[in-house]
């Protein structure tokens, strides 16, 4: 066989899948094979982690590299399982991640593709995330404009260390559903609280 082969783009579909599972409070098993060949599984009930020990081992690998494949299988688990909010496990894993340069750049390019977003503010320190300041900066930048692009946030990073911290909060915020799209149709109803708030928002931004 001759000819050149194109290197496939790193696949981070596990992030989208995790986001969807948590948002929809699904129940089942999330299995994946990382780019380096690690096979792992995280069991989830109603959007919560069933086996915290298992999750605390898997999440650092799950977030650290691209995947070859990632699947979701609906399963029912007995009532005997305790399940916990996944935010702490995910925050801890992202705290400690050491991405290489290529991974950071790949994730950066993926976030570049997202349309305008809005950011939900929660105090992440409650969930043991140790860089609440970068998340606060993301949030503050987002409320100043009605057309906030993650691209702008990433491009503002002064150096590679800051870029890494910014990519981390985006991965965290994305997976937890704290980053959501701004729908052009949203907030158009002038009589709802959201519609009224949107009008005031535009006025204050212009002050």
């Amino acid at each position, binding site marked *: 066989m001759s000819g050149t082969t194109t290197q496939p783009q790193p696949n981070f579909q596990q992030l989208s899948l995790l986001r969807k599972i948590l948002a929809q409070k699904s129940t089942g098993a999330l299995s994946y094979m990382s780019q380096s060949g690690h096979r792992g599984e995280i069991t989830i009930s109603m959007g919560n982690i069933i086996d915290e020990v298992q999750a605390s081992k898997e999440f650092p690998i799950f977030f650290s590299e691209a995947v070859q494949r990632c699947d979701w299988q609906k399963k029912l688990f007995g009532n005997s399982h305790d399940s916990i909010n996944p935010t702490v496990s995910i925050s801890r894993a992202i705290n400690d991640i050491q991405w290489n340069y290529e991974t950071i750049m790949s994730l950066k390019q993926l976030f570049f593709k997202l349309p305008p977003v809005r950011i939900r503010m929660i105090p992440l*320190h409650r969930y043991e995330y140790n860089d609440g300041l970068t998340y606060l900066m993301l949030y503050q930048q987002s409320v100043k404009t009605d057309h906030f692009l993650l691209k702008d946030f990433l491009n503002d990073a002064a150096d590679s260390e800051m870029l890494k911290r910014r990519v981390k909060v985006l991965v965290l915020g994305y997976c937890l559903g704290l980053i959501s799209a701004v729908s052009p149709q*949203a907030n158009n109803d002038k009589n709802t609280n959201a519609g009224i708030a949107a009008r005031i928002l535009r*006025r204050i931004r212009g002050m």
Partner: protein
Amino acid sequence: MTIKKNIAKILITGPFNAGKTTLIKFVSDEQTSGKDVQATDALAQYKSMTTVGLDFGILHVDDELDVHLFGTPGQSRFNFMWKILSKGALGTIFLIDSSSQRAIDEGKAMYKYYRELSEMPIIIGATKRDLPGAKELDELGRELETGDTPIIPCDPRKKEDSKLLVLSLLQEIISQSTKPEDELLLDF
């Protein structure tokens, strides 16, 4: 022809001496300040003048909408006013002097009282963070027991900070009233 304007209401509250009057000044087109009088109670050692009555500001949004900003007096004995004013309000900004343990202790009780009365969106503005002994945001949240309520650092003496705090409240109102869109599921 006279167009009847709709009125939206935003409350600015929290313990005394946190910057409520100053914040309202920066985000209003018209302002009527409550009367500043000499503090005569135990608070006099912390602040010589304090607001009695309401701070009130109007922000003209467009031809059909005005925002009324009500700053409630900072002493907890005026909590009953918050109960009256909170009816129909869009949301509340809770300002707190993060350098004063006394304000934090009082703020904790006030916050609990407000939360029991209403589920309206609320955000916390942590002020005076440049003063010695100011609490970090995580510590402040723990002491106030505010759960997942956003805490934003703010210096109300700066117009941009005051604007940012109100923008944050409005964003919170929008987030709480709309279902998250999920078209962000890209081909990652």
